[in-house]
């Protein structure tokens, strides 16, 4: 069995390399099928592994060390894979959802000239994501972590002809890179403390009490920043809506189902580490709650269909962070899985819809689409009700209910017992659930019901319809593997993770509250937007609050003002090498000084030589006077000389 793990990564990787090497030579169909086939093989591998895991008597985690990455005295790391239930859930999600999205993309991207680049990046992304998920060493995980980042960059900027797209791609990469740097710092801190980044070794060291609380808090904080950036939580949330500039399958796969959940996976993976740092846990839950609330409010006023979904993704990720922060990582993982299903479905449906509407994304220019595209309506409805968490019939209900009920009884050791943080968080989450249902059904009523506004063409190809059907099925029924005790004692998921939730006595009204919030949302949405004469005829930009909320509460502008503009300005200011100028300046100065010195010297020499000549000339004339040719003068000189000699002899 272990050899399946490297194969799992190998298929997408090989196909990515193959697609990049043969770029431009294969037909679009071939390219698509090669990529899809590779992901399909991976999916088969992961299903095989899942079967093996489920049916083996004692499901032990599979470890495989491929090779030693490096080994020095102070530090060692391996390229190694581990398959345990957590990573198995993830590889199932990644490969199966990935396969369906690839299948969908074959038709969706058929007309694109850069299709090889698209599928190459997509398969490379799947490979990186699998490395991230399977890694048993945090260093190996980091390879995948950055790998998915670069693939996301390539795919957001896929239509590079438009500078807006490449700017969005760069923004996404820069923001996640900031988080990655923080995460790298966390890794370095852990590596220097324990000498290894192997997760099991880390946990063993943790249990042995060899990691001090300060170090632990700092390290988890760093890792948390990395996770927040990757999962677009406050304060990094601004990149994800812009990332919708990429092709829709990309948005579905990377920016909804998999990559953005890497942060959740990381924390779930290291939950023992995080549990030991209560401060960071509390921070995680608060950030999660704030994000889910903020993003839900923002989604409520968006007019761009893909942006609604993007903000909704941020909001749902906030739920998962909230769950992680309260220690129920199983619930986060469960919601991750169902979210992957229904959000991928929503994106793919939206993509198909937008493609048939000639790339119209504004929901206010759509309307009454259920008449022309009933299939898509059903699919979108399935995804939306799962997202809203309509009770009993959707997967989203079970996962969200699991989160909600566990938050209620969460315990924060750092706070005094009387402070009801858990209840406040529960209230926020419940309001969030209501808002979620409100905004997604607002979207449904506006887009699919109401009056007919745009012409749609063609029909959805079968190749795109099949994945939608599969995902609809999964969205609706993927959640029945785990149910609240109140309904039925089904705990397949947590048993599979071999981490059952502590059995808490939940009051029934908790469940009822969780179930009624989405229904209330649907009802109010119907009241506001669902009827033939809507109560609220929205005109975009009507109220200031709506305008601000639509722009993501001005965070983008704030960052632009605080960071981007100063950075640009400073860079522009220092675009020339100061030191270069300094040294050039010194050179110039030396040259000026030396030329000055030379000038002075020349003048001095000229002057002094002139004077000397003059002096010599006058001396000459004087001496020449003596040579007058008169014998008697000569004799007189002789005498004078004699006298002088005598005198010098006499006078001592």
């Amino acid at each position, binding site marked *: 069995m272990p050899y399946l793990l490297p194969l799992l990564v190998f298929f997408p990787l090989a196909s990515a390399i193959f697609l990049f090497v043969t770029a431009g030579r294969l037909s679009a169909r071939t390219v698509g099928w090669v990529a899809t086939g590779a992901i399909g093989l991976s999916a088969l591998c992961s299903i095989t592994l899942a079967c093996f895991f489920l049916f083996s008597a004692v499901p032990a985690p599979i470890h495989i060390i491929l090779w030693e990455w490096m080994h*020095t005295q102070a530090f060692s790391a391996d390229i190694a894979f581990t398959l345990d239930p957590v990573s198995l859930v993830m590889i199932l999600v990644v490969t199966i959802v990935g396969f369906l999205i690839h299948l969908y993309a074959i038709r969706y991207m058929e007309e694109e000239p850069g299709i090889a680049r698209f599928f190459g990046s997509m398969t490379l992304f799947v490979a990186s994501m699998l490395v991230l998920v399977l890694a048993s060493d945090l260093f190996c995980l980091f390879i995948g972590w950055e790998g998915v980042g670069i693939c996301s960059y390539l795919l957001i900027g896929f239509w*590079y002809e438009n500078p807006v797209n490449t700017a969005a791609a760069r923004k996404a*990469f820069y923001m996640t890179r900031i988080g990655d740097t923080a995460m790298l710092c966390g890794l370095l801190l852990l590596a220097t403390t324990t000498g290894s980044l192997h997760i099991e070794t880390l946990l063993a060291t943790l249990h042995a009490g060899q990691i001090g609380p300060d170090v632990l808090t700092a390290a988890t904080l760093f890792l948390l920043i990395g996770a927040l950036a990757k999962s677009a939580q406050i304060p990094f949330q601004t990149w994800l809506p812009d990332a919708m500039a990429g092709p829709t399958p990309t948005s579905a796969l990377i920016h909804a189902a998999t990559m953005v959940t890497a942060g959740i996976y990381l924390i779930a993976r290291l939950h023992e580490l995080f549990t030991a740092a209560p401060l960071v846990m509390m921070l995680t839950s608060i950030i999660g709650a704030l994000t889910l609330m903020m993003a839900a409010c923002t989604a409520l006023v968006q007019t761009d269909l893909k942006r609604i979904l993007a903000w909704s993704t941020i909001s749902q990720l906030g739920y998962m962070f909230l769950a992680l922060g309260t220690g129920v990582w199983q619930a986060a993982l469960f919601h991750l899985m169902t979210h992957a299903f229904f959000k991928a479905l929503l994106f793919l449906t939206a993509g198909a819809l937008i493609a048939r509407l000639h790339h119209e994304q504004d929901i206010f220019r759509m309307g009454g689409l259920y008449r022309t595209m009933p299939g898509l309506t059903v699919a979108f409805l399935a995804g939306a009700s799962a997202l809203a968490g309509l009770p009993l019939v959707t997967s989203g209900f079970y996962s969200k209910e699991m989160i909600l009920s566990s938050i209620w009884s969460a315990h924060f050791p750092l706070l005094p017992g009387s402070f009801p943080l858990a209840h406040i968080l529960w209230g926020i989450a419940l309001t969030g659930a209501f808002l979620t249902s409100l905004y997604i059904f607002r979207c449904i009523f506006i887009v699919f019901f109401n009056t007919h506004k745009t012409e749609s063409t063609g029909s959805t190809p079968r190749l795109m319809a099949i994945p939608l059907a599969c995902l609809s099925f999964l969205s609706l029924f993927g959640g029945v593997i785990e149910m609240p005790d109140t309904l039925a004692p089904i705990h397949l998921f947590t048993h599979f993770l071999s981490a059952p939730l502590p059995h808490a006595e939940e009051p029934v009204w908790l469940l009822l509250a969780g179930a009624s919030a989405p229904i209330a949302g649907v009802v109010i949405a119907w009241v506001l937007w669902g009827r033939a004469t809507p109560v609220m005829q929205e005109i975009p930009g009507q109220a200031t609050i709506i305008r601000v909320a639509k722009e993501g509460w001005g965070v983008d502008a704030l960052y632009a003002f605080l960071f981007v503009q100063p950075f640009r300005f400073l860079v522009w200011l220092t675009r020339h090498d100061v030191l270069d100028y300094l040294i050039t300046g010194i050179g110039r100065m030396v040259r000026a000084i030396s030329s000055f010195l030379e000038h002075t010297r020349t003048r001095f020499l000229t002057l002094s030589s002139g004077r000397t000549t003059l002096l010599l000339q006058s001396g000459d004339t004087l001496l020449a006077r003596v040579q007058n040719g008169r014998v008697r003068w000569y004799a007189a000189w002789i005498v004078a000389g004699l006298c002088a000699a005598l005198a010098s002899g006499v006078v001592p």
Partner: protein
Amino acid sequence: MNPLPALVLLPLLGGTVAWLADRSNTANQQPTRNISWRITLMVLTLETVLLLITTFRHHTLPGPWLDHFSIPWIPVMGIAFQLDMDGLSLSLLWLSLILSFPCVLLATRQITTDAGAFHFLFLATLTGIIGTFLATDLFLFFFLWELMLVPMFVLISAWGHEDRHRAAIRFFLFTQGSGLLMLLSILGLVITHYRETGLLTFNYFALANTPLSPFLSMLLMLGFFIAFAVKLPVVPVHVWLPAAHTQAPTAASVLLAGLMLKTGGYGMIRFNLMLFPEAAIRFAPVAMGLGIAGILYGAWLSCAQNDVKRLIAYSSISHMGFVLLGIFTGSNTGLQGAIIQMLAHGLSTGALFIIAGSIQDRLHTRDMAQIGGLWASLPRLSSAGLFFAVASLGMPGLGNFTGEFLVLLATWHVNSIVAALTATGLVLAAIYSLRMVNRIFMAPSRTSPSHAKDFSAGQMTILGALMILLVVLGVHPQPIMTLSMPSPLSAPPLSDGGGDTQ
């Protein structure tokens, strides 16, 4: 027969032959225009064979040094033609050859004016570089060190771009001036050794044991350090580099960035660390500070450049800051990180310079605003450029990250705040790399260079080989790390070692 002297001298001889062949063939123009190019390629192939022999021949020497060669040169002064090879030299030699091939195959064939002289100078520079990596006689080392400057100076000032003379003179002044400081240090060391032991020698191993007062050793070390710092380059004395890299012809840029900078790092490891270990430890905080300054300063300025070659040049400064930082962390991890970083930087930046040079050959501009998007017209060139840009931003799984990670790890052991500060250089690296990608590769195409030819499959194969090497350095660096550790001084090779002194 010991292959070491042949390794050093072969390029020089081959270069002479290439020059003479080209001169004798100037009469009949067209068919033999590339004769010097062909000879150069042959010389490199021969050199590779020699290096293969050196790598895989049975090493009889006791101790960690792999190979040794010595004949007296100026016996009166105790100067010998002495070459020694350890893992560090060997890995850098391989880097030199691996980079020379793409240079010759992709860049020097376009040289039409006086190709013979060009190839002669190219190979002469290579001789200097290879010799520098091998020489263990300090006088010989200095000789070869200076030997590589002169041909490079001529290469820049004769075949360079618009502002070549200034750049060449600046390059020459900086490196030559600092070289003189090194000469002073060498002489100081030799004279001290002579006073102490009465033995006049330039032998590296003998001089390593010279007893020195702390002040004197610091002084001598600084002499060496400044020479190497100029070459590396370290921030306040990097000024020659952007101009020289930008103005040099493509092949010379690759040699400069890929190899010549490495001689600085090599020198720091071999001479600063090994000859003056105590002084190096005392000097380490300053050196590390300079390294961080280099990382951040280079990356920052790289973000502001519009000239693509200048951008790459500043990114080199940033990368070499990691090398300096790693060398002076005083741990093996840091040293290995610095070596890996040198190798990876040689590959990635060398390839980037080749690509930038190819763009200039095709579009006759280096201004990123004028180049515009090339992906539509030159997809192969652009994808290669994308790969190496991503490598240079420190993508995990590629060689540069391995080096940076090890250096950061070693730095974190010394001082965690400093390491965290250094890590922000990675964010800047992302900014300048992707800025370049989105300006010249993935951007709306501005020009319509229908005449511009994309890389051929053969050329892509060469670049592909570099990519594979980078990936290997990134995901499986352990064998190279084991190989490339510099041998300790404690076991010098026997000076009359068997039949090696042929």
